[in-house]
């Protein structure tokens, strides 16, 4: 029997909307708010470079993976973590664009370019993963 071809195409799953728990999102909101304020206060005390480092603090990730593990099981949490590794690497692209372009281009344009760099790097890395390890990106195995 021929092996089933992996379906690695990203897509929407609107049915997930029915499973959303407000409590989970309230928790994520609080984590995001706390780390943002914390980074600002650390920046006031230790300088903007130290504060900026905390803009990439993984406040949400462990909580998110824990919620996924509780709700969908360990395998889904594991596969989500693989994607998060790529997103984390792409975060460096966001910061490098900001570092290179602030002071050169209009600041709001730089923020948009940095977001675009994150999107481009994240999707590009996902595409590479899908080619190298299609089984890790297979929709049929979710």
């Amino acid at each position, binding site marked *: 029997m021929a092996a089933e071809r992996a379906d690695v195409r990203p897509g929407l799953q609107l049915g997930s909307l029915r499973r959303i728990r407000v409590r989970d999102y309230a928790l994520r909101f609080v984590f*995001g708010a706390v780390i943002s304020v914390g980074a600002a206060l650390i920046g006031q005390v230790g300088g903007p470079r130290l504060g900026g480092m905390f803009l990439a603090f993984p406040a949400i990730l462990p909580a998110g993976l824990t919620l996924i593990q509780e709700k969908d099981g360990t395998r889904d949490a594991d596969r989500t973590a693989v994607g998060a590794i790529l997103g984390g*690497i792409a975060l460096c692209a966001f910061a490098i664009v900001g570092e290179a372009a*602030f002071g050169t281009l209009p600041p709001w344009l730089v923020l948009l370019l940095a977001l675009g760099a994150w999107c481009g790097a994240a999707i590009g890395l996902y595409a590479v993963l899908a080619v190298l390890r299609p089984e890790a990106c297979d929709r049929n195995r979710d």
Partner: protein
Amino acid sequence: MSIGILALRAVLAGALVVVFSLIGELTRPKAFSGLFAAAPSVATASLAVTLGFDTVTRARSETVGMVLGGIGMAVCCLVASAAIPRLRAVIGSLAAWLAWGLVALGLFWAVFVGGR
């Protein structure tokens, strides 16, 4: 920094975290939706407030530190990927945070403190 600006940062960051989390929830496969677990939500909100109420120079300095935090984030995700499925979620999360702290603070010390 005034309480009002801090509150604005908090609300914007929390809202962006929710938006990126919702995008992650609505997309599949899981490896793709996982990208949004490490989205620059807090960074975008915080830099936007810095640009609105502070200087571009400060925003640029924040992104310099963020490069180091981003490297720590990638390592943290690697540790989380290995630890959370194998250990209890709380212990796995603590291990992931510890990994971020060691890498990011170690790099910060090496680049900005020890390298002087």
